[in-house]
């Protein structure tokens, strides 16, 4: 299943500084929970605790699925479909 993963607002620094990651996931049943583990195993270079905390993303990162807050879509339980875009955005605090 092809999906696009995006990392912005500084979160891209966890994945080699690259914002867009088109990926092809094996099989068809992928919850966001499973995706997070896959990202930790396959994309995060170092310091995984800066991305995950427990079984979810660490505080300060928002997850948007097709530009909609994952909280409206079931969070960890949401099941990905072909061509989904999942955006991980680190909240900025500078001014």
């Amino acid at each position, binding site marked *: 299943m092809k999906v696009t993963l995006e990392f912005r607002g500084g979160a891209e620094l966890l994945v080699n500084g690259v914002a867009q990651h088109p990926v092809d996931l094996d099989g068809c049943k992928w919850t966001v929970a499973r995706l997070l583990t896959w990202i930790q195993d396959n994309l995060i270079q170092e310091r995984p605790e800066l991305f995950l905390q427990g079984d979810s993303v660490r*505080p*300060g990162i928002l997850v948007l699925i097709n*530009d909609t*807050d994952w*909280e409206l879509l079931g969070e960890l339980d949401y099941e990905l479909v072909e061509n989904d875009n999942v955006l991980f955005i*680190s*909240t900025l*605090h500078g*001014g």
Partner: protein
Amino acid sequence: PDKHQHPLNHREVARYSRQLILPEFGPEGQRKLSSTSVLIVGCGGLGCPAAIYLAAAGVGRLGLIDYDTVELNNLHRQILHTEGRVGVAKAVSIALSVKALNSHVELVPYEVVLTSQVALTIISKYDIVLDCTDNVATRYLLNDACVLGNKPLVSGSALRYEGQLTVYHHNGGPCFRCLHPKPPPPETVTNCSDGGVLGVVPGMIGCLQALEAIKLASGLGTPLSRKLLLFDALQGTFRTVKLRGGRSDCEVCGETPTITKLIDYEQFCGAAATDKEKGVQLL
């Protein structure tokens, strides 16, 4: 008598003519704006453009909070300060520039740190609050104070080449805590001193904060509530994402709030309420 009903005087008609002829704005929008008070918290990269465009448009009263003084390294983005005012309080410096443009706006500079002790008292005097600060602790403090004081909070932020903007605690939308119940680990937070920022990025976001405040004050258009605007200066792209509504279990704006007065936010965040340089070697 309704304070919105006073007729515009000749000076106001002359000065604001280019926005008075906007059909949706008109004299009614101008009266609403001139009877609105806006508090700008942070007189830096976001606060400068926000203050000058609000004053230009004719907001009634502008509160300006900053404990800090102007430094040379501020001038690449903080466009209301000047070389001659290095060392002057930022709140005073902004007030001087704003007054030169529009002497009819009431200006209230506060040379204080926004603490849990003073926040509610100050905020209670304003209709709309702009978060133009630069650190996590103050952002939680300001959020909670706006929820407790029931004021809409126009929140902007900028770092490197990116900016973010939303309106919190407005019309059923979320507050900052609805999105972020727990503070980020301090080691994941980068400020402009450490991470840098292209000056025009807070310029853009500060302009948009002024716009959102004008929209809230005058009732024009659709405020950016339940939506988050993401700006990427390198690509020149803007993206608006849809956010959750206010959470019924939010600790401060939910149905049974546990935060009913302001707490110690530096302790809560494990980080200081400042964006000061920590002696990092830059080059």
